[in-house]
């Protein structure tokens, strides 16, 4: 029997630590989905085979870990205990890493990260600018843990908090500690977690449920997935503590269908936790029983909304319903239910173990702790970053994110997914917490942070999000079902150059109506991308409507592709790559695009050598001139 009690757990922890020589070299390979896409699986396999072949097993450990966060630079390999950070590792580098670094303790400069600003190569993971300003209390352990091995989690003080909660604290004390910590829900709403637990605890019912909302549907946000994949036990531990505090006997983890690796790792972690007696009957020998099931979602964005999520678990269509009654009153199968997001649950063990006082020192007055953001889009260092609440956007985007790609100009950052908004450059020095984002018309949401540059059209971005929510609207209530559709139609019309000046007022009216009259969070927040772009980027709307112009050169209907005759060298590249044969011209002669055939796919622009860069995009009056010229030539012929 593997089942442990608090005493046996500490013994086991001591055993694991003793069996692991601290100084033993360990090659850790990031196994997050980003690195998977880069082919880390094969790399890990080759490492393992080589270590076996060279009989280095007693000198070197190999560990495939959770996501390290710096997805831009995958596949990532870190050599511990030194923390030597290798990025963009290829199969061909493996032999050298083993012989030189793992055995010889010699660093391979070529594989190190090069600071693009200072031009120096950086050896240690913690010194890379991307990591330096972060405070990775939740996410940091990912890099040391093989999510399929519960011992790795136990070695890093795992399940210590459960032991403390069950044997040294009363449920009320836990709730009071979570309240004092100032933890607020990381799923979007920002409701105080301790308060939520208290409400559910006070309900008189012999059956209560807790749920972990892992239906991370916001496009561009993937921190919950990386936590579930990389450190599933931290979430399970948080749920056990929550269940004990609330008095729930059963928990569900509702995972998004599109995250197969998360489903796999968390399912395995639950089995392991049962084996060791962290889940099931008499947890750690106490009189508390609790177990967790994984529920695989079926691909509906609206199921991230709590009442929809519960409907889905019950086997129904994920329709939201009116609140109140809140889930704490009538949740799953009519019983009191407490729902928290993945990241919220992952915060709980830390608060219990280290205390509310320690926790509440991090962050701002009203938003405590850290927040994991997925920093994506037109940014140099794409990845997951964990920072204390209150850090400014500028620090996140420039110091950690390394600024905008290809030296372009920052235009906006979109936070909070389809429920959030776009913030302009003059908001860069705002400290980021729940309240400043809400005041700015956006929301914290689950933590997506999509950076946009001068090439992104804000009307198009608003249209993109509205199209998203319109497609994902469940259709139950009229304002959301019809309102989002109307807004998409207006926005599409504007991006196609068919907008009328009255459209802006119509958009505003619709947005207000949908916001105020929709049944659930999906509809109530759906207009945010429209409202914020109208608030901060009104000039772009006006330009689209009045001048039929898209300055970002993004809206297809408002631009033309044009080959600059004085630059074109007649290399035939664009002609060969044009999928619709719209380009004519002989070798060493200027090529011409037939505007009647061109589908504006941009393939010519992609292939034109940067030295030549003969292909330009034009909009507004310039576009009209080119079309006129084109038509004149055609009629002449």
């Amino acid at each position, binding site marked *: 029997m593997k089942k442990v009690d608090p005493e046996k757990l500490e013994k086991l922890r001591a055993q694991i630590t003793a069996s692991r020589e601290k100084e033993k070299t360990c090659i850790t390979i990031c196994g997050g989905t980003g690195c998977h896409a880069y082919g880390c699986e094969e790399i890990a396999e080759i490492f393992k085979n080589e270590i076996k072949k060279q009989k280095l097993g007693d000198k070197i450990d190999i560990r495939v870990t959770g996501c390290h966060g710096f997805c831009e630079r995958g596949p990532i390999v870190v050599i511990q205990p030194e923390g030597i950070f290798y990025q963009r590792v290829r199969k061909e580098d493996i032999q050298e890493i083993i012989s030189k670094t793992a055995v010889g303790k010699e660093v391979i400069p070529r594989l190190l990260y090069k600071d693009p600003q200072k031009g120096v190569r950086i050896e240690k993971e913690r010194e890379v600018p991307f990591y330096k300003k972060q405070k990775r209390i939740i996410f940091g352990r990912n890099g040391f843990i093989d999510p399929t091995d519960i011992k790795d989690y136990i070695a890093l003080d795992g399940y210590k908090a459960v032991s403390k909660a069950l044997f040294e604290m009363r449920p009320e004390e836990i709730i009071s500690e979570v309240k004092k910590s100032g933890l607020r829900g990381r799923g979007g709403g920002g409701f105080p977690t301790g308060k939520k637990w208290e409400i559910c605890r006070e309900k008189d019912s012999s059956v209560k449920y807790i749920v972990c909302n892992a239906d991370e549907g916001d496009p561009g946000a993937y921190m919950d997935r990386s936590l579930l994949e990389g450190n599933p036990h931290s979430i399970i531990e948080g749920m056990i503590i929550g269940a004990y505090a609330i008095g729930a006997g059963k928990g569900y983890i509702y995972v998004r269908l599109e995250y197969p690796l998360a489903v796999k790792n968390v399912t395995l972690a639950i089995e392991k936790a049962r084996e060791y007696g962290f889940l099931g009957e008499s947890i750690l020998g106490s009189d508390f029983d609790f177990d967790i099931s994984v529920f695989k979602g*079926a691909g509906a964005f609206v199921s991230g909304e709590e009442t929809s999520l519960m409907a889905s678990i019950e086997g129904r269509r994920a329709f939201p319903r009116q609140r109140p009654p809140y889930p704490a009153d009538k949740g799953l199968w009519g019983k009191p239910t407490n729902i928290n997001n993945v990241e919220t649950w992952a915060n709980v063990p830390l608060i219990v173990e280290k205390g509310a006082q320690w926790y509440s020192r991090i962050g701002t007055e009203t938003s405590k702790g850290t927040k994991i953001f997925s920093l994506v889009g037109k940014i140099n260092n794409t990845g997951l970053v964990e920072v204390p609440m209150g850090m400014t956007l500028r620090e996140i985007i420039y110091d950690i994110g390394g600024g905008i790609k290809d030296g372009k100009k920052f235009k906006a950052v979109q936070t909070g997914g389809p429920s959030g908004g776009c913030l302009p450059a003059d908001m860069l020095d705002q400290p980021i917490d729940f309240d400043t984002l809400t005041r700015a018309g956006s929301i914290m949401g689950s933590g997506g942070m999509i950076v946009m540059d001068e090439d992104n059209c804000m009307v198009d971005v608003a249209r993109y999000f509205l199209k998203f929510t319109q497609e994902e609207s469940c259709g139950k209530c009229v304002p959301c079902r019809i309102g989002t559709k109307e807004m998409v139609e207006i926005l599409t019309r504007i991006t196609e150059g068919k907008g009328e000046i009255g459209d802006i007022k119509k958009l505003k009216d619709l947005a207000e109506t949908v916001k105020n009259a929709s049944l659930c969070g999906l509809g109530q927040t759906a207009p945010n991308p429209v409202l914020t772009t109208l608030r901060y980027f009104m000039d772009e709307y006006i330009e689209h409507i009045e001048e039929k112009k898209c300055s970002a050169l993004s809206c297809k209907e408002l631009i033309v592709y044009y080959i600059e005759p004085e630059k074109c060298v007649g290399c035939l590249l664009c002609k060969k790559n044009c*999928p619709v044969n719209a380009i004519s011209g002989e070798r060493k002669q200027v090529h011409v695009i037939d505007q009647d055939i061109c589908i504006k796919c941009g*393939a010519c622009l992609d292939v034109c050598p940067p030295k030549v860069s003969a292909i330009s995009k034009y909009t507004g009056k310039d576009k009209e001139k080119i079309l006129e010229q084109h038509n004149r030539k055609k009629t002449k012929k």
Partner: protein
Amino acid sequence: MVNILKKFKPEKKELIHILHSVQEAQGYISPEAISEISKYLNISEGEVYGVLTFYNAFTLEPKGKHTITVCMGTACHVRGAASVLDEFSRRLNILPGRTTEDKYFTLETVNCVGACALGPIAITDGHYHGHVSTRDVKKIIDDVSKEEGKKKKE
């Protein structure tokens, strides 16, 4: 079908789990399957149909031999995923969500696979292609057929 149903309790809350299993085993939910499930759970066929059509995971038509999925997440969108999707759609001559007449390709979109650093992303039969531009599309499609040719030879 019987073997799949056997694995679940005849309770309504199992419906989505059952649909997942059927979709996985048969590639779609056939009218026969709907009827079997409704009998097993003692609910109407309409209810089974209502639930399965609500969720993107379930399809009423068999999919093509190969699935090409284009990520339409925000990070991919701002890097030009719409043009990439258009190009796949144009080359395969089908709209997103549809299957080619020869049942060889199904073109799908997904709202985010969470590999945003690699955007725009296309996934062919579970294999990820990162930083896809319109000019890569032809090769990605060709490679799927080539890969199959290779497997056949082996």
